[in-house]
């Protein structure tokens, strides 16, 4: 009887104990992005709600924050900022619908301008192939050198 109870307990523990959700091997540490700390998110939320009281001040705050979110490199921090921004825009929509549309139009224009490719090289295909062949020759020479060093190392 006791054995039965013990076995069932152990089975329940085994099922409900937390186990790693992901079986993948660890990613390189460089790919881990730091999470935005919670207090900062709350601070942002408070800042928005404080600025809502002011008339023109609240609408001018939104474009600056929207543009900063697009250039933010960390995706988790930008998603946290986006969440705060979502709350802000919902409140602004209730208060001033027209000004909100204007801000969105401004943001789209800024986005389109940044989409334009700033630089390009006017290289002909012929020149590109020449340079590619030079690079290939260099790679083959480098591989031959590395093979020679490996053979030397084994020879010792």
């Amino acid at each position, binding site marked *: 009887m006791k054995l039965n109870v013990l076995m069932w307990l152990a089975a329940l523990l*085994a099922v409900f104990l937390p186990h790693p959700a992901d079986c993948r091997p660890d990613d390189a540490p460089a790919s881990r992005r730091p999470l935005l700390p919670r207090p900062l998110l709350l601070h942002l939320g408070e800042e928005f709600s404080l600025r809502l009281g002011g008339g023109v001040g609240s609408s001018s705050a939104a474009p600056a924050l929207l543009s900063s979110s697009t250039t933010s*490199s960390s995706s988790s921090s930008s998603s946290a900022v986006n969440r705060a921004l979502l709350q802000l825009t919902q409140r602004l929509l209730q208060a001033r619908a027209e000004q909100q549309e204007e801000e969105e139009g401004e943001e789209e224009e800024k986005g389109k301008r940044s989409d334009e490719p700033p630089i390009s090289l006017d290289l002909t295909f012929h020149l590109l192939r020449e340079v590619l062949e030079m690079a290939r020759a260099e790679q083959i020479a480098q591989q031959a050198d590395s093979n020679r060093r490996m053979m030397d190392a084994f020879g010792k």
Partner: protein
Amino acid sequence: MSVALRTQLFLFLISLSSRMGLSRYIEDNEASDGLYSLLTLDQKRESEDFIFRRPLRCLDMLATDGYFTFVASQPQLACAAFIIAEPSEVISLELSDVNIDCSAGDFIKVFDGWVLKGEKFPSRQDHQLPLHQRYTDYCSSTAPGATSRSSQNVAMIFFRIHSPDSGFTLAVKKLHNPFPCNIMSQSPEGSFTMVMPHQRRNCSFSIIYPVEIRLTELSLGQAKSNELSPQRQVWSGCSGSGDYVELLGGNGVDTSKMFPVADLCFSLSGLAQMKIGCDNSVVRLVSSGNYINRVSFQYRLLEHHELPKTRENSLDNFCAVE
């Protein structure tokens, strides 16, 4: 043992095994050391001391790992270095010892892909990131010396340096990519197999030479059920079905601006070949994500006398194909 006890024991064992779930991850079995694992630690350290270094030129193509240093002897206003790796590799770039004056108009920008004459490879439709995220500007990024990783086997770096004796060092490393998509071929001859496992992506294999392409194997759908009846003939439009292979030809690197030369939407086991006399020949695999698609092909350079003849008095801006 009584039946009740046995059943309880089995239930117990089954509940234990519920902890060990089935998981799938891509295990890279290619040991990067290879034969080096046979060496002793001292010998390994000796051989690793050697890192390839050379100066970077204003117009350059890099195909090896190493450290490339650019030092401006005169103001260089339009410089670019193309970086290319093997098809199943991606490129990791890192800037170090950067000595430029961002306020004077100097910049270093890393692009995830190649830009040639305003056209981008991979095209906007084929790349997973939006265009502004494919550029990494050293002057405006907050973390100096950050590593950027390309999504395919090509990358490039644009730089402009005004004052002499300014410069930077670029570290190039190659990383393995188990399912390559969007590949630029390094050589005009070779063969490749492109696999798209259950992903809704369009992948292009681009060869910047006029080549003859032979499709040796095409499998659209699950490997088991290869009995797809040909619903359409070869060389007629396939865009109705979800998964197909198309051959493109054109004079730029942007695959969305190239002309489709042929479509194939049923599995074949024989040879299908085509001569594409264009500056850029592309094999593109369009996948809906419902199946595992695989296409194998070989390609070889077309000699000058083998190039398809252009039609006389032709107004098309299209390179000849046969």
